[in-house]
């Protein structure tokens, strides 16, 4: 009898340890996927712009920062729920993208490759320090909103409600961009421009317009990601820097120009980040770049690149 209760205790202990481990694994997967979807949406625009024009937008993280400040400002000054700032940020991001193309990128395209690199690099510095001048380097955050600071509990898992909502919007945004590119005439023109810009021009496609459109969509998606991120992340002028590097790794991992690639790679990077954060937190960014490095060496076009 005594022996039996002992073994019961033992089984219970093993059961609870197993349950603890299972809880941990499930929680990590949930957190990893939720964060990964945001990474994916941030990387989408970068991948798209590169795919269409073969140009790397260094100011991409700053577009994200602009989206975050839009959400913050609308919330802090007009007491608007940050949910309402999503379409506004998206629209502003579109205009910012198109504007950057028309006023800057379009002109520097005539220059050598290096000029193109430094052009968007300059844009990055300009936007970052403009934000620093206007908003000071203070760390801020969106404090009010239907979803801000709310947690959703499902059994023993509890997650930030705004992260779940953001993940949903990310999936929708991906689906919309995918549909637009592969199911519409506009998308076909964009793809034609991306495959062979010269030939597309001869076929009567307004390739400059397509380029501007790619920049617009790129800006819109990343600013949208910014407005989502502002729900649960802090806002500061240098915040884009943190996410730009991850976006580069995501794009390289998924394949330059690949939409599906950016989606999958974002989730993979989110998962690597939480798992390595759990194992050896200190090295978590190293893990991401090791995976990135391996992909570049063994599959230079990325997982889904062409």
């Amino acid at each position: 009898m005594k022996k039996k209760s002992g073994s019961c205790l033992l089984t219970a202990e093993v059961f609870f340890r197993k349950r603890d481990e299972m809880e941990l694994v499930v929680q990590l997967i949930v957190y990893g996927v939720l964060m990964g979807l945001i990474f994916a949406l941030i990387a989408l625009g970068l991948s798209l712009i590169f795919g269409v024009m073969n140009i790397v937008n260094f100011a991409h993280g700053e577009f994200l920062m602009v989206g975050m400040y839009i959400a913050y400002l609308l919330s802090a000054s007009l007491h608007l729920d940050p949910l309402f700032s999503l379409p506004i940020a998206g629209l502003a991001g579109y205009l910012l993208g198109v504007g950057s193309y028309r006023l800057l990128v379009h002109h520097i395209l005539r220059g050598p490759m290096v000029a193109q690199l430094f052009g968007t690099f300059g844009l990055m510095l300009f936007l970052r320090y403009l934000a620093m001048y206007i908003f000071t380097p203070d760390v801020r955050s969106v404090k009010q909103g239907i979803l801000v600071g709310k947690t959703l509990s499902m059994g023993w898992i509890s997650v930030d409600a705004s992260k779940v909502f953001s993940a949903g919007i990310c999936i929708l945004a991906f689906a919309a961009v995918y549909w637009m590119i592969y199911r519409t005439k506009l998308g076909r023109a964009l793809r034609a421009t991306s495959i062979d810009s010269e030939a597309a021009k001869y076929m009567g496609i307004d390739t400059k317009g397509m380029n501007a459109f790619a920049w617009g969509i790129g800006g819109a998606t990343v600013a949208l990601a910014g407005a989502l991120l502002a729900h649960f992340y802090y806002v500061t002028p240098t915040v884009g820097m943190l996410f730009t590097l991850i976006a580069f790794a995501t794009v390289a991992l998924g394949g330059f120009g690949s939409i599906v690639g950016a989606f999958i790679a974002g989730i993979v990077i989110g998962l690597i980040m939480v798992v390595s954060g759990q194992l050896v937190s200190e090295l978590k960014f190293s893990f991401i770049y090791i995976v990135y490095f391996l992909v570049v060496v063994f599959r230079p076009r990325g997982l889904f690149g062409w």
Partner: protein
Amino acid sequence: MKIKKLGILSFAVILSLLIFLPNLSFAQKEVKIGVILPLSGPLAPIGKSLKDGAELAADIVNKKYPGIGIPIADWEGIPGLGGAKIKLVFSDSRGDPAWGAEQAKRLIEDEKVVGLLGAYNSAVTKTASVEAERAGIPFVNPDSTSPDLSKRGFKWFWRVTPHETWFTRDLFDFLDGLVAGKAPGIKAVPKSELEPLAVAAENTEWGAASLTEIEKFAKERGWKIAEAFKYPHKATDLTSEARKLTASKAPTYLFASYIADAVLFVKAMKEMKATPRLIWGQNAGFIQPDFWKTLGADVNGIASRDVFSSVLGKVKPEADRINKIYKERSGFDFDGSSARDFIGVQVWAHALDKAKSTDPKALQKALNELNISGKELIMPWKGVKFGSPFPGDTNQNELGSGIIIQYQGYPDGKPEIVFPFEMATSKLIYPFAGWK
């Protein structure tokens, strides 16, 4: 003969006047002190508050501020230098050790500063002070707390702030005090309620040193540690690290983080509905105005070690008067960082006054012999006097001490002092009530 003598004498007088006149006119001149701070990049918010603190102290030295109650407020410039004004020459370290050292060199060689002040980040202070040591120019460090800095045997480096070893000792005095029932208004807490500890520290020199000190004292004082790890600072996401803390089932969480990471940790812990009994931050991010401005009521119950609190005015009226002026100028209350840079300039002012010269050797002597009474300071310290308080320390202020504050009643609250117990301004909130 007499006339000849008179002629020689008057010649000598004129000559000496000519020689000393530049020095007399020096009375109206300025004394340049180079200040190296992180004024851009992620640490810029802290850098700005440090700059505000230093600037206010310089202003109080340079102009009369009647009714404050500390000697420098009655000065109009440095009395020992005939009223010469202090001019602070700020330089941005970008939080980068190599760039910071470059700035120290530039300030010494191009700006011809008589001394240096700074540089907040321990790693920057380390490299910048090497330049000062090489040039034989005094470097006063009011705000870096890595213990190693004062253990290098430098002759031109003086540290005003207590270092990490002190603060960590304060933490364990606090924990042992809770167990012994010394905290006012709180029953003795069984040790099992607070043990084991879980520690998260950023992977910088400062974070690593904090972690080592905590582990050392925990061993000495017999406190078990369930989980201790370093994480990459300026992280994009800290949910897995926060999960690691909750998984450790430790009731006491200890952090060494700067502002961005501190905010992310609190948000992640809230998201996970973590239920620690005690949260303690190792200063830095946990005492920045942005910390409570960003998190609002979510900071209630969180404790942090600090060196200053604006509620100190309850015990020190001078501190209250100076804080009022600071708040008018910067929009914030003093915090532990800005108040220490205020003291840094104060130390410089007293050293210059005592040395009566800007000669490096005279300044070195003045700093070595400096003895400022605790009454003059806006800190809960016994004073400033350089010596060797812990084994291996040189030119380290012996009379400093730390406090532990706890956020109470936010968004409209104050950081109340809960340690040292005899200086407590409010009853400790224990256990931590969790996040709503």
